[in-house]
C-alpha cells in the first residue's frame, strides 16, 4: 500500500511539535524530557474543552498539528490508542466503590474508546468516516495499517492519530507506561506539493524491529505505545530514505519504506 505523508504532528514533553521533534531526531539537539504542561486547545469551544481529559487533549493537539487549518473537516480519521483513557477508567472505578456509585456523567460520556474521535469531529466539524482502534503496544502499527488501507481503497486524505497517556495509580501498577506521547500523520492517496514523503506500508513477515539509535529516545520508544513510531519519525527527520520494521499485530511486522518527496 502506498500513501503520501502530507503533515506530521508530535507531542511529548520535551518535543512539543514536529519542528522540535525533527531537530532532536535528526541529531541537531539533544533529547531532554521536559516538564508536563497543560495542553491549551484553541480549537474547542470552552464548554467542550472543559469536559476533555489529558488523553483527549493530547490526541487533539497532535491531530491539529498534522491537519493544519485548511480542509480538516474533509479528512477521514483513524484514532489508535493502546488502552483508552486510564484517567476516566480510574475515576469511574473509584466512583463505583462509593455509596450510590456516583459516576459523573462527563466521565461516563468520555468512557467510550472513540471519545477523542468524537471531540475531534466536533472541533474540526469533520463528518467523514472515523475508526477508533486499539491493539495494545502495537496500536501505532495497527493504526498505520488501517489508515493506509483506507487511503488506498477510498482514495481520500486521512488523518491518523496515535496517542497514549500513562495511567494514574493504582492502575499504573498493572500497566507500565512511563511517558506521554502522541503522533499524527496526514496521509493522502496521491502526491502533492505538500507531500513530505511516500510511505510503502506492508503487513507480514518477521525480522528484528527497528529501534532508536540514541539511548534516551530508545527508552522513550519503549515507554509509550504511540512512541513505537519513533524509528519512522527518525527517518523522516533525517530526511533519509529507508525502511523500518514496526512490531505489528500477532508477532507480525509492519514494514514501512520511506521515500522522500522533497
Amino acid at each position, binding site marked *: *500500500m502506498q500513501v503520501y505523508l502530507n503533515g506530521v504532528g508530535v507531542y511529548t514533553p520535551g518535543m512539543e511539535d514536529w519542528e522540535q521533534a525533527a531537530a532532536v531526531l535528526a541529531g541537531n539537539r539533544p533529547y531532554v524530557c521536559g516538564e508536563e504542561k497543560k495542553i491549551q486547545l484553541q480549537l474547542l469551544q470552552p464548554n467542550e474543552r472543559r469536559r476533555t481529559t489529558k488523553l483527549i487533549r493530547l490526541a487533539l493537539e497532535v491531530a491539529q498539528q498534522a491537519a493544519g487549518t485548511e480542509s480538516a473537516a474533509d479528512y477521514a480519521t483513524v484514532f489508535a490508542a493502546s488502552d483508552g483513557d486510564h484517567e476516566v477508567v480510574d475515576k469511574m472505578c473509584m466512583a463505583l466503590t462509593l455509596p450510590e456509585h456516583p459516576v459523573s456523567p462527563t466521565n461516563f460520556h468520555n468512557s467510550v474508546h472513540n471519545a477523542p474521535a468524537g471531540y475531534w469531529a466536533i472541533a474540526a466539524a469533520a463528518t467523514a468516516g472515523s475508526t477508533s482502534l486499539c491493539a495494545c503496544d502495537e496500536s501505532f502499527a495497527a493504526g498505520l495499517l*488501517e489508515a493506509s*488501507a483506507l487511503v*488506498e*481503497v477510498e482514495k481520500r486524505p486521512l488523518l491518523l492519530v496515535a496517542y497514549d497517556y500513562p495511567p494514574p495509580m493504582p492502575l499504573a501498577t498493572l500497566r507500565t507506561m512511563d511517558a506521554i506521547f502522541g503522533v499524527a500523520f496526514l496521509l493522502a492517496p496521491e502526491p502533492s506539493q505538500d507531500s513530505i514523503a511516500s510511505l510503502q506500508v*506492508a*503487513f*507480514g513477515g518477521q525480522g528484528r524491529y527497528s529501534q532508536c539509535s540514541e539511548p534516551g529516545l530508545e527508552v522513550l520508544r519503549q515507554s509509550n505505545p504511540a512512541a513505537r513510531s519513533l524509528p519512522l519519525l527518525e527517518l523522516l527527520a533525517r530526511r533519509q530514505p529507508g525502511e523500518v520494521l514496526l512490531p505489528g499485530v*500477532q*508477532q*507480525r511486522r509492519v514494514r514501512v519504506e520511506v521515500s522522500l518527496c522533497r
Partner: protein
Amino acid sequence: MSVIGREELAAMIPHKGTMCLLDQVVRWDQCSIECTSLSHRRTENPLRHDGRIAAVHAIEYGAQAMAVHGALLASEQGRCLRPGYIAALRNIEIACSTIDDIDRPLQVKAWQLMADGGNLVYQFEVKAGRELVASGRVTVVEMEENE
C-alpha cells in the same frame, strides 16, 4: 469461460460440505467474480437458526465469493492461497431480515479493491433478481504459516 460448478468451487476454499455456500461461478476476471447459489433454500444449510437464516449471513456469501476469486487468481499464477480470516467489515447494508424465504437464486458479486499478497479488501453485493439483499466491504487477512 465456462461455468465453474460446485465440486470444483468447493475444492478451492477451506469451507467444507454444506458450509461451502456457493453453487456456481458464472463469470470472473482479474478484478471481480460473480457466483450464484440456492443454498439459502436448503434445509441442511448450517447457518439456519430456529429454522431461519438471518440476512447477516449474506456477508458470509460475499466473503466466500471473495475466497473463490482469490483462489482462482492464485491458481492462475501457480500459487496456493493461504487461508485467511475476516478482519474487518465496513459500510455493511442489509436490506431484509431473513434470506431463507427468498425464492430466487442469490447472485453474489465481489470486486477486488486492494490486494497485498493474501491481505485483501473487496466490495461485495448479494442480490436476488434486482433486489439488494446485502452489500459492504470485507477485509481479509491471511494467516501466517505457523498459525
